[in-house]
């Protein structure tokens, strides 16, 4: 174990800087504002700093390290050219307050992304401003809120979410001031239309739902659900976390949704960087477009006098403020660097985005099938149950380890830790909450058949392990099972200098 704060060096000469442009002995700092003591930061030379962070990186698992079947997170390969493009000065070194004629290239790319996202989701208008999926949800719900206010429908104070929803859905709607109505799913995880009918009314603002559901199953009655909500005067909101399953096969627009958020870091491969950055654009139908956060990019034919650049082949690009915009959810124009990476990713597929989704679904179904086959062969099929008993899943599937827990006390978390010992990232565990001892597996389209075959074998090997081994797993990792209760009871949230 090596700590950053143990690097104490003699002084600040580890990293030299040019001298200031003027003498610093008479800097006008108000006397009350002179720093009384410096931060207790470490002192590292570049060799030490590079080694420290390289060492840390070796203690971290990424997609580049191995298979990362983390359900609901769409951990697909991140093409490296996207990183090269995002470091070009034309994006890394531009400022959001530069005038339009200096940033035609960025605006052209933004316009292309707005168009593409609108087409894929069947939406009429798109903003790229929200910087994460959760912020996209919040933004769309705010647009819906202002839509109802503009119509004088002030009594629409409730948002309906299924009990299988991502936690961000109720959290985002609550932040906007809505009351949350949670409705139970059916046994097989699908929407319960009767439960929905029972709660909609003239106080319904919206229903938030993802399709395919968090069980990885397509909701066949989604159009009926949309009709029920619309008949009550409410709006339909699509959580785009699972969008990777359906591109080019269906769209939220076709299903009857009014608003949608995209997780660019899932569907379009912005690397997730250990927890962010993400990007969460939203798309809306025309009746909500005037409320979008502004500005959004529009284009017009080139006019005489435009200062044309290599980005202006046919069009001039400009910012446009929607008429009744909710304003800003991020101070600038969102996570532009992420948008550029996702543009580069989209360009690899173009109209073949459908093939991308088909392979995501092919891989998920194939892996599910392989795991079941291997388990049957090994005589351990009875140890887990389907999260949803369906013929086909979409981009991910869930299994319940409840039978195994019942039989030998081994639950989803133990299996997860056993998989770490096999060199894999574990699937998502204990979500969705409606499946007991849930494991949620999402292989993505960028895994080979061999990887899936091997994972299925290894997964079944884990099921056959001695329970004691699994209770003790992992043993091959940098640290063994971490005591999360200890962390919460003995809060040490920074380096204890005085210890």
């Amino acid at each position: 174990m090596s700590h950053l704060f143990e690097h104490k060096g003699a002084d600040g000469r580890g990293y030299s800087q040019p001298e200031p442009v003027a003498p610093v002995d008479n800097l006008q700092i108000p006397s009350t504002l002179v720093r009384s003591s410096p931060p207790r930061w470490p002192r590292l030379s570049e060799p030490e700093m590079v080694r420290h962070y390289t060492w840390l990186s070796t203690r971290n698992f990424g997609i580049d390290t191995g298979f990362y079947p983390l359900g609901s997170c769409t951990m697909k390969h991140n093409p490296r050219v996207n990183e090269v493009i995002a470091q070009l000065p034309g994006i890394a070194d531009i400022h959001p307050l530069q005038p339009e004629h200096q940033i035609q290239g960025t605006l052209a790319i933004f316009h292309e992304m707005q168009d593409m996202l609108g087409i894929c989701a069947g939406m009429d208008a798109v903003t790229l401003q929200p910087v994460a999926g959760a912020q996209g949800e919040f933004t769309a719900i705010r647009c819906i809120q202002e839509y109802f206010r503009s119509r004088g429908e002030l009594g629409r104070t409730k948002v309906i979410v299924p009990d299988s929803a991502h936690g961000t859905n109720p959290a985002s709607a609550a932040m906007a001031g809505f009351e949350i109505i949670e409705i139970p799913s059916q046994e097989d995880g699908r929407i319960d239309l009767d439960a929905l009918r029972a709660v909609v009314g003239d106080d319904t603002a919206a229903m938030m739902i993802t399709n395919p559901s968090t069980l990885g199953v397509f909701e066949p009655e989604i159009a009926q659900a949309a009709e029920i909500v619309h008949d009550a005067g409410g709006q339909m909101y699509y959580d785009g976390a699972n969008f990777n399953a359906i591109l080019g096969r269906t769209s939220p627009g076709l299903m009857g949704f009014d608003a949608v958020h995209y997780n660019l870091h899932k569907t379009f491969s912005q690397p997730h960087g250990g927890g962010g950055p993400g990007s969460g654009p939203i798309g809306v139908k025309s009746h909500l477009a005037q409320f979008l956060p502004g500005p959004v990019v529009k284009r017009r034919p080139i006019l005489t006098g435009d200062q044309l650049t290599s980005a202006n082949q046919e069009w001039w690009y400009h910012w446009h403020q929607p008429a009744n915009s909710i304003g800003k959810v991020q101070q600038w124009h969102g996570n532009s660097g992420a948008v550029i990476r996702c543009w580069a990713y989209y360009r690899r597929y173009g109209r073949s985005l459908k093939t991308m989704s088909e392979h995501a679904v092919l891989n998920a179904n194939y892996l599910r099938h392989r795991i079941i086959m291997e388990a049957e062969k090994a005589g351990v099929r009875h140890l887990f149950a389907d999260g949803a008993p369906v013929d086909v899943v979409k981009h991910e599937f869930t299994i319940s380890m409840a039978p195994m827990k019942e039989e030998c006390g081994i639950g989803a978390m133990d299996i997860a830790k056993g998989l770490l010992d096999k060199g894999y990232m574990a699937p998502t565990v204990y979500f969705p909450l409606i499946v007991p001892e849930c494991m949620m597996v999402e292989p993505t389209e960028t895994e080979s058949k061999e990887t899936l075959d091997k994972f299925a074998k290894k997964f079944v090997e884990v099921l056959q392990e001695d329970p004691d081994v699994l209770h003790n797993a992992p043993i091959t990792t940098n640290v063994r099972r971490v005591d999360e209760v200890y962390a919460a009871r003995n809060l040490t949230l920074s380096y204890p200098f005085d210890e």
Partner: protein
Amino acid sequence: MVDQLPNLGREKEMLDAMGMSSIDDLFADIPEAVRMTEELPLPPPQSEEEIIADARRLLGANVALGDRVNFLGAGLNRNYVPASVFQLVTRGEFLTSYTPYQPEVSQGMLQAMWEFQTLISELVGLEVANLSVYDGSTAAAEALTCSVRVHNRKAEQKDTVYVSELVPPSRRSVIYNYTQGGGIEVKTLRHNPDGTLDLDSLAQAAGSCGVYVEQPNPLGILDGGLTRVKEIIGQNTAFIVGVAPVSLGIIEAPGNYGADIVIGEGQALGSPITYGGPLYGIFACTKAYLRQMPGRIVGRSIDVDGKEAFCLTLSTREQHIRRHRATSNICTNETLIALMGAMHMSLLGPEGLAKLAQRNMAACQLAKQKLSEISTIAVPHQSNSHFNEFVVELPGPASECIAYLDTQGLIGGFDLSTWYPERANWLLVSFSDQTKATEIELLAAHLAVWSASLMQGVSA
């Protein structure tokens, strides 16, 4: 032809194994009524070579700040970021990892973020920091809602917070969107004509849930009066300070003059401006606010062998557990950009940070001196001290001055009438560690020429 798909051409083999005959079988569960029947109306796939060529053509059309002499900042700052930061942050183990839900295989990022929390705590002088929120604007908004959660029960002015009138409309709009749902009223704190906070009228904020001010403020002013804010507003009102983190190399940590929550735009430490995103928001507070804090926090723990280990902690505040009662909806944050910040900070060390702050401030002070020597323009807050930026009052509209400077190859600054419509002639000029003395001379010369020509025009 697309790439990136290892199983292209092997579909039949995989479908056969499942007893299916076509890809369509996999989508049979989508009802016909909602199926997309037409091909997506998009262009054909491109190869990597074609994509990068297009990217170079399009992004090459932009004017990069580095192509020009640049004085545009307005809260974002073009400091030099050491090459090692970019080299290390693209290591795939960091770059391509998700949120560290499995701590046993995520110790690297967890430890790096725990170290980041420590670096920020030390920088701002508070006990606790989270591992980033989206940016400075959402950090301000989250701090205000946090202050209401903590203080509302005992507050005399329930559901009420106060925000400096100088906070730009773009940041204020984010604050509005985050606070309106909770029925929080955002009232305004006045500033004196010299740009400092009006401490006489601050007393009205006592008994509210929180007060938000910035140091330096949006006009670049370092306001010594802020050290008296906490005594005026009292223990039951959160004192929230938005900082420019580099300034804290030489400027007092707000935690040492009574701040309860310190937030800020972290970008200047570790990250390029990148058209305003991704950035990272700093969020730090005293222990009294910890349980109501938004965002993820890493704690130190032990593994079953008693060995030091790190994991996410206090997650019962968060949406995946608390759902609609969560302290915030945030989950994905800006970890990788915060990691860049941590790398930059660890390379600087305390002396390096102080020097970086001095370089920023020296450039600003030199420019203020040079520009105040020009008789046809004014520096309205000249007697104050400034960090990174200050206001120049012109004899004509700032927008026209910026257009003129553009023709001379300068990105001249920011037209403050965008933020404060009554200030048509105010230009906000910004300086960083990258500003050269010759560039300041150039700005002074061009401002003198432009303003003189304007004055001549007026007198004629």
